[in-house]
């Protein structure tokens, strides 16, 4: 009835051009300049983080060549003959008799007087004070005369010294009965492993009122999604109880919104494949699907012939680099531990699906989604040894993202995941 009017306006409006102000291009240009700077900053920070992790690994993994060196222990020896001191000679002082209780109590020790003699300072074959200031005491240890005078402490070299020392005191039979000093185990170990991690992911969701019309979703409509992740871990153990872990993981987060009204256009209708945006809980999605989410549950009264009940499923996959600290609670066969830390996530997949009538159609990517996010995680670890160096690991955990997944200031969606990791760790 008003074809002329429509034609009149269509022809006229297609010819109109309006020059925008110059500041528009300046703002566009500055946006890209800032973006480039941000990217450079992210690369720099990532590089620094990688360097720190590498440095930590190197620090903990490279065996310390100095581990065989022990500080000079107090020297104890027995000299029943003479206690006179010459000022020009160096004296090494003894510890109390309790330093070597096992020896002094043994009857086999054939002392000429009594076995409860006090240990007294003894002069060493050194002529000046400077000789003590050697930076490499192991050099001194290699000298048999000196080595024989040292009281052993804890390691293998020290044990050897102790044997020699005891031999000097009373013969080999005493050595046989001497208290056994266990050589300490090398505590600095590392572990590499792999795991798969089934989980359940959802999120805390809030939309402010300004966005109520366009969002049309609320937290009660949301449920989580089940997913499967996995990855590799790498851990160093600088002490008996603590280990530091990093690695590379792949995980999925997301949500499912039920009670969505899905509009399925008829064959003769204009396709939605190119120009429709569907509004989802996490913002706009440029719709590639045949169907689209037309409106929410609130507008069911407007439901038309082509509308069906459906749900929206949004999946976000990320590669994660965790940095966690683990505290081992016990040292038994089955070991328990607790862990906590942070993770850097880089989003690599952003898919929104619409489910209706048993179909699952890909709609597209949600807009304004943050590609870099920081998460925090806690967990309980259980390790069971399968062999001397291989351990089965079970680990229930919880991960929470510290930033909203959407960059849209009106949408606050912080994903969280419950996971149950199962994997293998190999100790080296």
């Amino acid at each position, binding site marked *: 009835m*008003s074809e002329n009017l429509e034609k*009149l306006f269509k022809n006229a409006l297609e010819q109109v051009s309006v020059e925008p102000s110059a500041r528009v291009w300046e703002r*566009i240009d500055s946006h890209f300049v800032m973006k480039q700077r941000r990217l450079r900053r992210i690369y720099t920070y990532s590089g620094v983080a990688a360097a720190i992790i590498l440095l930590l690994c190197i620090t903990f993994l490279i065996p310390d060549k100095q581990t065989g060196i022990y500080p000079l222990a107090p020297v104890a020896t027995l000299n029943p003959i003479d206690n006179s001191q010459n000022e020009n000679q160096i004296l090494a002082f003894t510890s109390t008799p309790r330093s070597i209780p096992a020896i002094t109590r043994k009857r086999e020790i054939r002392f000429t007087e009594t076995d409860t003699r006090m240990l007294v300072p003894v002069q060493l074959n050194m002529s000046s004070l400077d000789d003590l200031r050697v930076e490499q005491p192991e050099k001194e240890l290699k000298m048999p005369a000196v080595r024989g005078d040292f009281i052993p402490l804890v390691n293998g070299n020290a044990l050897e010294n102790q044997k020699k020392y005891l031999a000097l005191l009373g013969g080999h039979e005493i050595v046989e009965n001497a208290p056994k000093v266990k050589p300490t185990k090398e505590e600095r170990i590392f572990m590499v492993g792999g795991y798969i991690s089934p989980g359940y992911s959802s999120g805390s969701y809030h939309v402010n009122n300004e966005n109520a019309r*366009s969002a*049309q979703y609320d937290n009660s409509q949301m449920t989580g999604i089940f997913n499967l992740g996995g990855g590799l871990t790498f851990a160093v153990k600088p002490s008996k109880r603590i280990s530091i872990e990093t690695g590379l993981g792949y995980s999925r987060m997301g949500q499912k919104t039920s009670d969505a009204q899905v509009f399925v256009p008829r064959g003769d209708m*204009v396709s939605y494949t190119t120009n429709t945006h569907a509004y989802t809980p996490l913002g706009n999605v440029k719709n590639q699907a045949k169907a689209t989410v037309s409106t929410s549950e609130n507008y069911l009264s407007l439901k038309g012939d082509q509308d069906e009940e459906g749900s929206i499923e949004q999946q976000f996959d990320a590669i994660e680099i965790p940095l966690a600290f683990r505290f081992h609670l016990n040292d038994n066969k089955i070991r328990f531990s607790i862990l906590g830390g942070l993770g850097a996530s880089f989003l690599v997949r952003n898919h929104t699906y619409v489910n209706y009538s048993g179909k699952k159609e890909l709609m597209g990517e949600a807009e304004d989604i943050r590609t870099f996010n920081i998460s925090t995680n806690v967990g309980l670890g259980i390790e069971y040894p399968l062999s001397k160096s291989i351990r089965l690991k079970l680990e229930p955990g919880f991960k929470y993202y510290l930033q909203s997944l959407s960059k849209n200031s009106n949408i606050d969606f912080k994903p969280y995941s419950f996971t149950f990791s199962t994997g293998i760790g190999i100790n080296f």
Partner: protein
Amino acid sequence: MCNLDKIVERCKKGDRKAGEQLYHMFSAKMFAICIQYSKSREEAEDNLQDGFIKILESIGQYTGKGSFEGWMKRIFINTALEKYRKNRSLQVVEEVPDVVDEDDVGDDLSIPPNVLFEFVNQLPEKYRLVFNLYVMENMQHKEIAAMLGISDGTSKSNLARAKDILKKKINAYLRDE
């Protein structure tokens, strides 16, 4: 390969100079579209800026099928509608009775395009958006309703009201001439 294709290819490679060339080729035309879908000049400038950033960031998705100008235009319209949806407060669904639309204007009217452009821009926002989507983008009421979050009936009645207002403006303009 024509000049535009070369510029698009350079934009895909991240050439900022090409981006500037592309902007100057289309900014006036696209700004007119942004004005049609925005409630003020300032908002139209924001939409032009946001839309053009989206274009440069997603230009790799343009496969060469269909007109590049049409692809750009859809992005600007979607950017403006997205803002409209975000800024719009929660409204009760309104069912407005249809306006009987029988009269038409003559087919030989000579009114300058910029005058008609201003007539459209003076329409209330909810009428203007429906009118533009229906007349300029050839969209169906169902699609318009889905995009704007209104009912089919509201879309139809808003269109009829828009046309009614425009007809009155045309008649007043012709009387004053």
